[in-house]
């Protein structure tokens, strides 16, 4: 259906972005496909081998899944930061991803977690790392007729933790000015693997390997944190806009990277 529509065609999951764009007159869809009643897109499956979250699962539903929240607190918290309780009842991770805003809350956390998107079309199914989906503000790598069916999170090794933090001027209802997601695993008290991702500091969320390198092998001491912050700030290519300045975003990216790493470290059982 999506493939054959000649006009502007959109997938409707929670609608919390799509309906706003329709209201403001930015888009006039010729076709809307509501996916909320498709069973495969509507469920969460969680096992020792990994977690699969359907594209139509709302933020609130994800937040209520205790096992997922225990395994991936950062991912769940990030998703639960999208909008108000009203928006949580409707919004989805996949919608957040496909809306392709550089400031999307769930995306840095998903990338840090090594999440993959299950992309389906009439002709088949492929699995793509989340960081390959968004190519720029409002732009994705999805081809016409392709939709994301689910997000898959890998199995969680022991002594792992993740965290997501964003800076907003108010306490709620804002879009992230800067954000940071960190996921890491410990071995004998030291960080063995880590992924550090920043949001709202570039056209897409950015994975910062240098920031991960800064803390791998460490016990997240002052020196490692300092280097992590510096690497985060160095990875920023932000813009000046109504939500923040280049200077501000660059500085605070380091601060949030540091703080998110500390939380993730603690969650992994680090001391």
């Amino acid at each position, binding site marked *: 259906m999506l493939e054959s529509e000649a006009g502007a065609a959109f997938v409707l999951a929670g609608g919390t972005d799509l309906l706003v764009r329709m*209201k403001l007159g930015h888009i006039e869809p010729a076709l809307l496909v509501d996916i909320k009643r498709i069973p495969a897109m509507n469920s969460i499956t969680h096992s020792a081998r990994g977690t699969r979250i359907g594209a139509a699962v709302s933020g609130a539903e994800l937040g209520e899944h205790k096992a997922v929240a225990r395994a991936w607190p950062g991912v769940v918290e990030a998703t639960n930061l999208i909008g108000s309780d009203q928006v949580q009842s409707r919004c989805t991770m996949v919608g957040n991803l496909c809306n392709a805003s550089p400031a999307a809350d769930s995306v840095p956390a998903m990338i840090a977690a090594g999440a993959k998107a299950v992309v389906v079309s009439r002709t088949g199914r492929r699995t793509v790392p989340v960081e390959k989906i968004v190519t720029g503000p409002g732009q994705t790598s999805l081809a016409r007729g392709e939709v994301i069916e689910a997000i898959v999170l890998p199995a969680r090794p022991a002594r792992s933790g993740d965290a997501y933090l964003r800076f907003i001027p108010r306490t709620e209802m804002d879009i992230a000015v800067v954000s940071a997601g960190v996921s890491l695993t410990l071995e004998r008290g030291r960080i063995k693997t880590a992924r550090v991702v920043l949001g709202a500091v570039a056209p897409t969320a950015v994975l910062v390997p240098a920031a991960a390198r800064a803390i791998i092998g460490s016990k997240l001491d002052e020196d490692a944190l300092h280097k992590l912050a510096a690497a985060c700030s160095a990875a920023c290519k932000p813009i000046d806009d109504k939500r923040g300045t280049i200077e501000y975003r660059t500085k605070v990216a380091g601060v949030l990277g540091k703080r998110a790493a500390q939380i993730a470290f603690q969650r992994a059982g680090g001391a």
Partner: protein
Amino acid sequence: MAAVLVSTTINGDAVEFACPPQESLLAVLRDRLGLTGVKEGCGTGDCGACSVTLDGRLVCSCLVLGAEVDGREIATIEGMAENGKLHPLQENFIEHAALQCGICTPGFLMAAKVLLDRNPQPTETEIRYALAGNLCRCTGYDKIVRAVQATATELRQLEKKKSRRKKSKKS
């Protein structure tokens, strides 16, 4: 696009309506069904004045399409008072002066009701975050939070009384 025929339940009553597929639930409720207690403050999900519940979950009706609610259950402010009796939240909003101009009040009441249904003993912080999706420009939220706290206390006492009565009946 042709109009969509929708059968749904609103405040316990079966309702049918037809609307263009791109029309919001908010517009349906207000303009087609006369439920103008549901208010529009922004149309973009930022103010919460249009809050209703959809299958028990709190939503901004401006961010839901009318066409999506077929077979669902909707509750609006018009259904909050039951059997001619105001809900304790409604009573306390009046008593504690939790409203000034009143335009945001229906949305706050819906949000507060969902909160108390799920969490009968919320902390002040929990109340404040649960209501953060509802903007009020008159009150500074002080008396709204107090009205919700007072209602929570009242409802808990009511529950205690009920369970005591049940116990005494059993024994």
